[in-house]
């Protein structure tokens, strides 16, 4: 087993898989390694909201291009372009919504404000307590639990090897490149891409690099199947609610409410004290949700650095090593920024600039 790869990718989430496919298409021989199953990290448990309305202004061009990638993936990932409404219930929220959506529209998202009548016509079951609502026809969702299945198939099609249940526990640099110690033996590669999501800090530490990565512990809940209640993606001015009803009738509720735990300790824990207000907010927006039974709540780790912009580029201080992660709204942007990362490693000029992992994080 002295297989030598052009690049080893640590992490089989959306970032690692999308990059691997781009590099394979460009003629490289990558291998993807994941400590668990493909797409069972953040990429497999996220709320799946593909909403431009909740993207950061500076990331809007990436999100817009990400949307095109999702459209192309289509049914295989449960993609639906439904349009989406973001709601404000208080004067303060109205102000916040106007201020934020204006900047996002300027950045290229086709966001408009709609009248209460238009909102009621489109979403008759929403509360009548809405003071203002913005609309974006590009918004939609995908089914994140299909991420693993989807990329497993795509990697197989592209003949990209991947190993599941294969944690990387040590990395050594030598003349030929990198030797990775894994639960399934050693793996050699000329280059290395760290795409380990919320686990980037310990993975980079194997190469002696300290990345200032923190993890948020986001919570998502899902109900049993319900009769049709809503047909678009519903958000809240503060970003603390995302809600959509899937084709099968289940309603998925997220919004970044925090559970507890750390990536190092394993799975995070749901906290009743945050699930409750999250469901209260959802029910406030959609009163008929009151009758729905919640079947499952779960958490996932979303990585970030202090300025909340991506890490995408060369790993500082280690030649031939790269890092991709900490992308806010990373599910939406992942398929596109993964391509950019692949291009960068292939030696091509990326279409949009990457985000230097060696920057000073406290600038913004």
């Amino acid at each position, binding site marked *: 087993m002295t297989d030598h790869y052009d690049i080893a990718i640590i992490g089989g989430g959306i970032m690692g898989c999308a990059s691997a496919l781009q590099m394979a298409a460009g003629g490289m021989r990558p291998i993807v390694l994941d400590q668990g*199953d493909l797409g069972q990290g953040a990429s497999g448990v996220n709320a799946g909201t593909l909403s431009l309305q909740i993207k950061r202004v500076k990331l809007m061009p990436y999100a817009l291009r990400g949307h095109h990638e999702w459209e192309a993936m289509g049914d295989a990932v449960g993609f639906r372009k439904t349009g989406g409404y973001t709601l404000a219930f208080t004067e303060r929220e109205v102000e*916040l919504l106007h201020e934020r959506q204006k900047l996002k529209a300027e950045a290229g998202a086709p966001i408009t404000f709609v009248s209460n009548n238009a909102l009621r016509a489109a979403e008759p079951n929403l509360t009548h307590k809405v003071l203002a609502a913005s609309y974006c026809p590009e918004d939609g969702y995908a089914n994140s639990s299909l991420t693993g299945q989807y990329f497993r*198939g795509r990697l197989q099609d592209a003949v990209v090897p991947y190993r599941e249940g294969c944690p990387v526990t040590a990395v050594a640099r030598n003349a030929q490149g990198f030797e990775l110690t894994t639960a399934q033996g050693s793996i050699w590669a000329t280059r290395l891409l760290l795409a380990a999501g919320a686990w980037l800090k310990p993975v980079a530490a194997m190469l002696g690099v300290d990345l200032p990565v923190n993890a948020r512990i986001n919570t998502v809940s899902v109900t049993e199947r319900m009769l049709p209640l809503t047909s678009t993606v519903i958000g809240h*001015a503060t970003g603390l609610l995302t809600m959509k009803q899937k084709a099968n009738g289940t309603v998925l509720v997220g919004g970044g409410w925090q559970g507890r735990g750390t990536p190092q300790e394993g799975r995070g824990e*749901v906290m009743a004290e945050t699930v409750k207000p999250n469901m209260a907010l*959802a029910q406030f927006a959609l009163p008929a949700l009151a009758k729905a039974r919640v079947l499952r*709540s779960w958490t996932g780790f979303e990585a970030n650095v202090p300025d909340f912009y991506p890490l995408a580029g060369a790993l500082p201080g280690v030649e031939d090593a790269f890092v991709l992660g900490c992308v806010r709204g990373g599910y939406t942007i992942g398929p596109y920024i993964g391509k950019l990362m692949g291009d960068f490693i292939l030696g091509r000029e990326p279409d949009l600039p990457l985000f230097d992992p060696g920057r000073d994080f406290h600038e913004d």
Partner: protein
Amino acid sequence: MTESYDIAVIGAGPAGANAALSAAKHGFRVLLLDEQPAPGGQVWRAKSAAILSAPATPESRAGKALRAAVRDSDVHHQGNTRVWQIERQSAGWDVHTLTDGQTAKVMAKALILSPGAREFVQPIPGWTTPGVIGLAGATALFKRDLLLPGNRTVVSGTGPLVFFVASEIRRLGGQVAAVVTPNTRRDWLGVLPAMRGRPDLLARGALWVADLMLAGVPLLWGHSVTAAQGQGSVSGVSVRKLDRNWEPIGGERGIEADSLCLGHGLIPNVEAAQLAGLPLHLRPELGGWVPEVGADGRTQIDNLFLCGDGAGIRGAAAAEIQGKMAGLNAARHLGADTAGAIAELQQSYARAARFGLAMTKLSQPRSGLSSLTTPDTVVCRCESLKQSDILAEVASGAGSTNAVKSGLRAGMGPCGGKYCQTAIARMIAAAHDRPEGDIPPPTPRPPLRPVPASALAGDFDYNDLPIPKPAPL
């Protein structure tokens, strides 16, 4: 309005009720929670309130005694209450409950889990036809409602329950078309030595079998029901002989019946223990994946105790004694001197556990059992997934129960995977040629029971929602 207790007990079966009683005797404030209205658990389930009188059985007598003991004690019993979430805090545990559509939180310094077991049914063609019910599930019908599964019933499955169910059907005036069990008389001879420690229980079992034989009910040893026929309701079942590994051999024969009780042993309910933070290990002789628990109910977490069938299937008699030990240990953790009392229970526990484990062994699945499921058999009832759907997903590379769940929604329905995951894990292990111990159940997710959104939201004022600072622009 959070209530605070010294000890909270989840599950008021023989294990939990006895744990609560033992701890309360030492002066601790004990809360006993169960989703059923009255204590008794599965085995000593109380009759529905609508039934005013019925002949006594050993189960009803034991249940009555237990309910009286709880009533006469200082234990605070709260029935009709589902526990949906458990959180460990620095000073103890938060237990989140649902009663009459309202959620509440109780705090306790120590937590005793006694959630019992659930039934395992290996899916066979036609098992979702109305008229097919679980073997253990049937006992709930008898005990709670004095109802029969049908007029003419085939009773099929492993272990002693098959004889208990058949003789209960007869006692309640029903007809048993046949008793079909994969176990052979040799299997039973093999466990006799372990049963001698509890001659009382052995004698009861012998009575069930004698009653069936005297009544001329066909007893098909070493056989299994392989299919249920009928559209909309059961019209008959097919039966085949099994080899030593429970692989069907020989021809199929039909038995006319309008109902079928089917079961292949019990699986410990471990989700509460998982939420509390205990890792699982595969112990087939205990009924499947279980947390590490001492005979006296202690776990690796010093204020968490586990007892009864939820710690491994050892039966009601062992559950009762392990419950007492768990309760005494919780009391000891809180400062009571109970070491002597615990030691006194060890021997009787060992005897009862030996008996119970011998019964569990009769249900321990053998390699052929899985072949009762055909490609067209529905395996996940909530999502109507057939065996062939699951095998296709596994063949495409899904190598864990989590991966199959994500890809197919197998286990994402209202049952939360309680009824399909064991069969699915075995399918994955077989397809990838890996030991079953490599394929753990999926990550547990709260709530332990479905909770209405309105109950989670509660009465709230929008302006009081604790809305954090919005994300950076």
